[in-house]
């Protein structure tokens, strides 16, 4: 039913608290197919938690999340089925340190999608090639730079053929000179039509790539619009204050 109007993810009045701490206080957000949504905000504003609620790495306290035709927040929903189709990239990469780049990309294909070894390997090599690591497929994570590790992590998520990709501060742990390679991959992905929700501090990237920019603070969406609107003509004091600090 949500598919009809092109909405892939629909979040309704989402609340999340850790004990007495209210991290999300009623968030509503729709993401359409092919849309790239960038979420900005100071640390502690709840943007990462919002992202992690989408694939249920965090269990929402109240509210609903829909992924395509499935209500994610329904206790009867097979969480793993959702997660298969929602790729996620973490700030700290989280590659499997005991597996080579290629096998990092192959593991879930084999275990979850039950692809044959040959299939999984072919797809792994294809995606590693796309992120520019064709010559690093047999390297162990420890032998790769942070930027390379993050690109392996992106390839690993993409190999599952996700409908949506979530990026949780994917470049924040990287040295400045390594950020570009990762952003280039993300940019190419956006141009290829991938639906993406990106939590980032990279304003340049947000401006270039995002279809929509959202500013969050204190667990709620303060302001949203096109990147131009948000960056060049912020309406709210808190948005102005934040952008003033960051640019």
């Amino acid at each position: 039913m949500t598919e009809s109007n092109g909405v892939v993810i629909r979040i309704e009045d989402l609340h999340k608290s850790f004990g007495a701490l209210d991290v999300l206080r009623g968030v509503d957000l729709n993401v359409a197919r092919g849309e790239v949504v960038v979420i900005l905000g100071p640390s502690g504003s709840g943007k990462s938690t919002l992202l992690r609620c989408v694939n249920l790495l965090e269990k929402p306290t109240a509210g609903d999340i829909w992924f395509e035709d499935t209500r994610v927040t329904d206790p009867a929903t097979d969480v793993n089925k959702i997660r298969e189709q929602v790729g996620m990239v973490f700030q700290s990469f989280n590659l499997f340190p005991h597996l080579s780049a290629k096998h990092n990309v192959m593991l879930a294909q084999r275990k979850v999608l039950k692809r044959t070894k040959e299939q999984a390997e072919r797809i792994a090599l294809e995606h590693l090639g796309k992120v520019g690591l064709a010559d690093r497929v047999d390297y162990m994570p420890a032998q790769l730079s942070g930027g390379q590790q993050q690109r392996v992590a992106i390839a690993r998520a993409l190999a599952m053929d996700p409908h949506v990709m979530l990026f949780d501060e994917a470049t924040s742990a990287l040295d400045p000179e390594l950020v570009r390679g990762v952003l280039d991959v993300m940019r190419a992905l956006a141009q290829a039509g991938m639906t993406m929700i990106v939590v980032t501090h990279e304003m340049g990237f947000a401006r270039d790539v995002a279809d929509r920019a959202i500013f969050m603070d204190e667990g709620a969406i303060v302001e949203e619009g096109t990147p131009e609107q948000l960056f060049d003509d912020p309406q709210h004091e808190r948005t102005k204050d934040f952008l003033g600090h960051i640019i």
Partner: protein
Amino acid sequence: MTMRTQGALVRLVRSTLLFAMVLALLLPMIAASPAEALTVDSVTARSNQIGGNEVMGGRPVRVTWIGTVGPSESIESVVINLPDGVSPLLGDDASRRSEKLGGQPVSQDDQGSDQYSRVDVQVTSGSNRIEEDVTWVIDNERATVTFGKPVETGHKIQISVVNLVFPDADASYALTGSYTDDTGATRTFDSRAMQPIKVVARPPVEKLTDWLSDQPWVQQWNSFPVCQTFFKPQTAVSSVPALFVGWLRSLGLVLLGFPLAIPIGLAFSFLRMSKLAVLRFIASIYVNVIRGTPLFLQIYIIIFGLPMLGVNVDNYLLGIFVLAFNSSAYLAEIFRAGIQSIHKGQFEASASLGMNGAQTMFSVIIPQTVRRIIPTATSEFILLYKDTSLLAAVGVMELMMFSKSIVATSIDMTPYVVAAGYYLLVTLPLTKIIAAFEKKLAAAEGHTDEPPGKKKKRARRGSSGDSTAEDSHQENALQAAASAVGARGTGHAAGGEGS
């Protein structure tokens, strides 16, 4: 010679009457076996080295000949021929002889105490010892024993030739000889029909210890009490093969006990991480009681306690089980620390890819855990291996027990020092392997950016490059895992940690 002849004459006169009286009675027997005036009962040889009826060649031994004087006979002298190749220890002399008259009692204790050959003679009648004036002479050919007064019918003569050296080769020997009665008649005897003296060649170890004993530097070394007490070369050389089986038995204890401890420990580590408080509580009691009490005490309780319940299991087997249960408590903590040391991000990354709990556990978490706990688990193995020695206290035959039994005869501490060598034979290489493995692990998990194929991996700690939050986390995790074992390292009683 004159003395002997005189004695014989006196004896002859005195017994003539008796002879005449019994002659009629005994005539048929004597006629039937005229030569059987003396029966050889046994010929044996003994030394310290080998039990049973065997002696070692090339070393002084005592040969004992026992004969019984036949009916209506009196024996004046006995000659025992030394078999070919058998040599007495005569020093620089051609022969040695009794200095004084009077048979020396055969004593078990002074066996081999003299460096020269001698003859010990004992005459008994039933259980009574008969005092005899005995003279003896021994040369390269024979040992001759002459009695002051002839030995009477039914008396038993025991002649021990002490410090005879048999050729150093496998062979059997029978003694031949002769005796002279009071009539001056000489007859021969032959023990060939009896059980022969079996001689075995000295094993290489014995040859080596004998050789060492002859070396001036060994004698010099042993002249220092400290050196002789803690490392006597001869004892060291003989202890190495003697302790080998004990070493194998110690290895057997730990090689059977430790693998048994792994599944038990794994089970308790899962229980300790269980969602059910009851299971966590049970596992926590198990782990803390075992880690909080001495292994020595556990050994006593089990090995002395079970037989009281009527459970009679072989000590060695029980020892394996005590070691296994003890080690399982430590391993449970190592496993738990290992699993909990895996970064949360690993679970999240697996989950975000749609992997379920079991897939995550077996494909992602456990492979990383195994790599991380190998050093600490190996340390635990080393500790357990050393602790097998505690089982000696309850009589389990292992390296320590073997050493103790050798020390009882060697009187020096060398067997313990050799046993230390046997323990180190396992612990030192393992310690090296752990160190190498830890280095490799550190390299594999985030301290190198060398391409694969390069064997030499440089540590890259502290460089600002691409180190992630994960790096320092993994180091902490390793330390946490190590500290789980550290509790044991500081003594078995320090089990409170990790409760």
